[in-house]
């Protein structure tokens, strides 16, 4: 069996090669044709996903599929627990190629739509990993750089701005130089203690520039701006040079996507903070930070950071000087000023919600409806019927109830997913319907608090 399979696959891959060489076309054999471009086709690899499937004893592949699903879930959980240094303030400008070449369909559904989708995922993931950082989004279209969204720390703004691009069509030629210059302008005011980075998703093989791009590269290196590029078509010499020069000779920040999965990996790699940013930052330290309150004044006054007249701003909580934007370093006393809401964005990683357990029929009679949303559960059935449903897939609750181990309330699957993926709160624990005396309630509450911090 296995031997014949091997031969069969070998035959197919040879056929593919021949057809590629003969036709030299894109389209259905998209990944293969790109593979050829990447390093002269030296790296040759096929992922045979069907080979990882093993038939179970009952002749189905359900157990393997389940295992794969569980494995991917566990991977996600494991990824969350890595001790990342979230205290780094990064400033990133995401530059999207919106030119004609993005209409190519070698990445499904098109380069353009896939880029927009990954860009949204990137923004969301970026703010999970770097909660006090800022992002701006630019686009390259018709030889111009256009502003998609301004530098800010609010992911929803960027995501909706990128979402709006879906209705527009990519057209014209891209201009790397214009994009870089506009990104440099956006990063110009950023404080020196953070990083300055540009990430370009570039689908074209050319750049129609108004001037000398090498001058732009030198100004970028002078401004200590790092550029990373994800290419979608093939390697472009100027991109490699750009990455190498702005990263101190290291061109690993330039990658060309082989397929959809690789593209996603390349983009998501940027969300992890740069490893060797500076020696002082990389040692874990206690930072003193101020959480200033926003004020508004009837008459404009000069802000301490740029000496611009503004009528609103944030007053430093130590020396009361006014800065016009956050996060920033107080120009007079040097205190790091940030919005506490930015810090709080990552707290659900610190105190993750414990997984809820499945409820067997024996304990299911305690509840008739979901505690959170009130949807009725299926009624407790008789013993014979239970036997029939006991053989359901593992991981799903037979009684379709899920129990929080702390507050012992039962929830439905929708609320389970919602609580663990969106809110990161347990509705039952937070609204502790405690019937003990007040003293007990208070102690109980302290206990929960302590449990929270211990984890």
């Amino acid at each position: 069996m296995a031997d014949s399979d091997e031969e069969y696959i070998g035959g197919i891959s040879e056929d593919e090669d021949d057809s590629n060489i003969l036709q030299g076309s894109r389209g259905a054999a998209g990944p293969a044709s790109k593979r050829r471009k990447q390093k002269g086709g030296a790296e040759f690899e096929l992922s045979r996903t069907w080979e990882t499937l093993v038939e179970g004893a009952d002749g189905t592949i359900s157990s393997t599929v389940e295992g794969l699903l569980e494995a991917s879930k566990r991977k996600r959980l494991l990824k969350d627990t890595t001790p990342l240094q979230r205290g780094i303030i990064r400033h990133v400008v995401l530059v999207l190629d919106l030119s004609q070449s993005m209409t190519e369909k070698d990445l499904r559904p098109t380069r353009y739509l896939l880029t927009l989708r990954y860009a949204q995922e990137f923004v969301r993931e970026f703010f999970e990993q770097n909660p006090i950082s800022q992002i701006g989004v630019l686009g390259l279209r018709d030889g111009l750089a256009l502003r998609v969204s301004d530098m800010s720390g609010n992911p929803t703004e960027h995501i909706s701005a990128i979402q709006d691009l879906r209705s527009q069509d990519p057209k014209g030629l891209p201009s790397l130089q214009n994009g870089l210059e506009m990104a440099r302008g956006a990063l110009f005011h950023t404080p020196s203690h953070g990083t300055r980075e540009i990430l370009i998703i570039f689908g074209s093989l050319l750049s129609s520039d108004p001037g000398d791009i090498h001058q732009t590269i030198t100004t970028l290196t002078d401004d200590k701006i790092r550029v990373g590029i994800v290419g979608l078509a093939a390697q472009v010499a100027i991109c490699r040079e750009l990455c190498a020069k702005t990263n101190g000779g290291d061109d690993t920040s330039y990658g060309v996507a082989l397929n959809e999965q690789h593209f996603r990996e390349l983009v998501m790699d940027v969300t992890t903070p740069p490893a060797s940013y500076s020696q002082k930052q990389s040692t874990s330290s206690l930072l003193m930070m101020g959480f200033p309150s926003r004020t508004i004044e009837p008459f404009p006054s000069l802000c301490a950071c740029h000496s611009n007249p503004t009528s609103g701003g944030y007053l430093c909580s130590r020396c009361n000087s006014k800065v016009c934007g956050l996060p920033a370093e107080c120009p007079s006393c040097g205190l790091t000023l940030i919005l506490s809401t930015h810090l709080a964005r990552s707290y659900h990683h610190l105190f993750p919600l414990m997984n809820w357990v499945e409820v067997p029929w024996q304990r299911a009679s305690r509840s008739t409806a979901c505690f959170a949303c009130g949807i009725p559960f299926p009624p407790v059935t008789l013993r014979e019927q239970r036997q029939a449903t006991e053989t359901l897939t593992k991981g799903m609750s037979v009684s379709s109830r899920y129990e929080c181990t702390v507050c012992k309330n039962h929830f439905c699957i929708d609320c389970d997913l919602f609580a663990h993926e969106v809110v990161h709160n347990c509705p039952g624990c937070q609204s502790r319907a405690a019937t003990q005396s007040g003293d007990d309630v208070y102690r109980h509450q302290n206990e929960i608090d302590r449990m929270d911090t211990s984890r």
Partner: protein
Amino acid sequence: MNAVDATEHYETSAHDPAPSLLTVILDTNPHAWALLEQTSRSPLPFSTALANILVFLNAHLACNYANEVAVVASHSHKAAWLYPTASPSARPDPDGDVSMTADGSINGQKDAGRQVNKYRPFRIVEEQVTSNVRQLMDLTSRTDMDNNSSTMMAGALTLALSHINRRTIAWADAHGGGDTSSVSRSGGPDTSTTSLLTRRSTTTAANDGTAEGLQSRILIISVSSATGSAHQYIPLMNGIFACQRLRIPIDVCKLSGDAVFLQQASDATKGIYMSLSEPRGLLQYLMMAFLPDQRSRKHLVLPTRVDVDFRAACFCHRRVVDVGFVCSICLSIFCEPPENGDCLTCGTHLDMGDYGAKPALVARKKKKKKVRANGTGASATPTPTPTPGP
């Protein structure tokens, strides 16, 4: 392509405006209401406030026949549903969520003669809310109140969000949720996790996008004091970020005092924050400021707050601080440097830096003296002279 199909589908059915779901979180902490009644110049009794809120709910229901409301009570020791309670047949749980037993029969008999002419949704909301509030107050014992003057705002917010999630899913299923979602819905308990996950993602995508879905918003009517919610800082913030992700504005109507975290909530979710100077005019405030839904708000100048208190609660003592120490690994906030320099949350040993280094001034003076000593000592200047010697 799928996205294009979906939008077309929505457009065909979106001739009438999408309904909106208003979730009211009512702070029912008896301490705070008693304080409001006693101290303020213009007292607003709880009964009057509740009557006003009911009128406001009716007004929202009247805006569109498909509009929905939900009311959650954020009480002193628990959060409980007031309006969409389960059917009377639901038995009380042993773990005490007794609020699920809405006893409609008693009210039905009593009010049957009086309210036959009332629009039925109005009547149901009114009956359930009043009976549940009464039940909640009856079940509040003296001991519950003695030790706990805070309010379960985080729990109420989580409950409200769960309900919104449920209604959004139900609405998407009913109005063009697509074939796949209906299949995974009908599967019941044996639907696989993946289909649910994908459905979840599609519903959030629909919610994130410009497509017309169920428009939800949350109104918090708060009376409790500012620092009462400090120990719920993290759950409250989690709730706020969930609202931000789902684009649910949180409106805050503050009857007394000021609440730091509710200000941040309305600021982060682009809601309305109003601190009422004249609590007796509650109904007018509600009708004028909080009735418009998200679509009409685009065209209005909203009475939103411009100065926002962005202080945070520390993890060690639950104090509300404006200058704190932050662990660079996990971003936990502490009001003072932790002992031994170990982070209380992630356990990392932290380099303390020069915080708490009081002798900074003294050290500088010493340095200056040394410099002077070097300068005046004349030991440095002669050194060049020996060098040419050999």
